[in-house]
């Protein structure tokens, strides 16, 4: 057992760790006593019915929300709260910001800045947060645009792009910050069915070519199965089942998981895909 002081240096420190995390909105408890961890480089997909708290987990890691109890550790360091003498203390905004730069997120609704061109969207934070030169940031942005197949859209405004193209720009924008952790929040849910494939294809390639840790919320079960190292089944704010994708999709241990997968994949699908 590593002591608390040397956890940060240990190679097997989980990059994301939830300890007894609770998130409530008023009386509504969304997550309760949640404990789980994600190892460096691991791809973990969260599945489960809507309202089960999956997206809230991503929003907590991105610091868009803060846990109401417990703590979240990023690479051994507390994200928003630490426990001092048994009391929960919020970190300073400066400390929170420092950890936040290691995390990137792609949203369901893309959330590109409509007042900026594609290249400005991608280079904004590399220049102003990471301190890259404009030339350096632009070169990298063009490289990323090439990776997502949008070389010719650098000077376009987001409003002139299709949903699939906007989401590809949003992926490039997140990658431009060189995040250690990439959060994907239902990134294909707002797209037309025929566009979903092109975005998932890009994400598959990123998963193959990089060692970025990914925490994924998706309804695309085939994608989850192909990309994930581990799948967590959520229901009612807690983890019902934690298994590798083959086990989760072919031989889930829990009845709740079986019911959910039957509902999303269709009868007779489990075990055949």
């Amino acid at each position, binding site marked *: 057992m590593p002591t608390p002081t040397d956890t940060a240096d240990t190679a097997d420190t989980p990059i994301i760790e939830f300890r007894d995390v609770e998130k409530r909105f008023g009386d509504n408890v969304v997550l309760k006593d949640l404990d789980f961890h994600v190892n460096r480089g691991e791809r973990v997909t969260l599945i489960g019915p809507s309202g089960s708290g999956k997206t809230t987990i991503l929003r907590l890691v*991105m*610091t*868009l929300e803060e846990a109401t109890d417990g703590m979240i550790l990023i690479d051994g360091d507390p994200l928003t709260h630490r426990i001092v003498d048994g009391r929960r203390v919020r970190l300073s905004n400066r400390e929170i*910001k420092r950890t*936040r*730069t290691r*995390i*990137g*997120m792609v*949203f369901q*609704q893309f*959330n*590109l*800045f*409509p*007042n*900026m061109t594609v290249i400005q969207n991608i280079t*904004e*934070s590399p220049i*102003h*947060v990471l301190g890259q030169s404009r030339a350096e940031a632009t070169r990298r942005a063009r490289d990323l645009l090439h990776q997502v197949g949008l070389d010719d859209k650098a000077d376009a*405004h987001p*409003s002139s792009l299709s949903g699939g193209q906007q989401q590809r720009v949003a992926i490039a*924008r*997140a990658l431009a*910050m060189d995040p250690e952790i990439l959060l994907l929040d239902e990134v294909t849910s707002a797209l037309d069915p025929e566009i979903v494939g092109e975005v998932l294809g890009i994400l598959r390639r990123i998963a193959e070519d990089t060692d970025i840790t990914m925490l994924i919320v998706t309804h695309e079960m085939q994608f989850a199965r192909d990309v994930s190292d581990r799948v967590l089944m959520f229901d009612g704010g807690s983890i019902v089942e934690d298994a590798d994708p083959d086990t989760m999709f072919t031989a889930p241990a829990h009845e709740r998981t079986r019911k959910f997968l039957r509902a999303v994949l269709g009868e007779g699908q489990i075990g055949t895909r």
Partner: protein
Amino acid sequence: MQEQAEIWDWEMFFRALPPVLEGFLTVTLLVTVVGTAIAAVLGLVWAMLIRLAPQPVSGIVKWVVAFIRMTPIVVQLLFAYYAFLMFDAMTIGIVVFGIHYSTYMSEVYRAGIDAVPKGQWEATTALSMSTRRTWAAVVIPQALRATVPALGNYAISMFKDTPFLLVIGVVEMVNAAQIFGGNNFRYVEAITLAGIIFLLASYPTSVLIRRMEKRLAYAH
């Protein structure tokens, strides 16, 4: 006299032109342009203070802005004129107009800022953007786009309020027309002329605003 019975006298109209135009150029236009600039900048300052400043400050600003907005500009002109004797009436006029209209514009900016979607703020967090960059690069440009028409309308409205400068003795266009009328015992031509100049100046301004609006526009 037979001439006095006439309702309209073209000669008087043309004789009124130089003093009325002078009032327009040296006062009305100047107060409107500088006043609008002050109002546009201060309005944004109020809106940002109300939104960003810590509690006692933002509460006070909110209260002061509401107070100024809910009292007549004539009262504010007279108050400032007698309270700050060290400044000339023209300076008082420009500053009071600027401050008075800044309180309306702050409401417009507030609405524009509120209209920036939540997802935009979340994206700035996900990209670790500083508060300064969040406002300068994302929130203000998007808020401005929504506020240009309203800001333009307030500029025109300020323009039409400039005759209130009369109460502190500043000879703007309408005041100049009235003085001309008093000197010549003919008011209709000079006042009509002032009205025409208001119209001629307001119309191109509204066209200009519409053009700016189009240039700032981008479809979502």
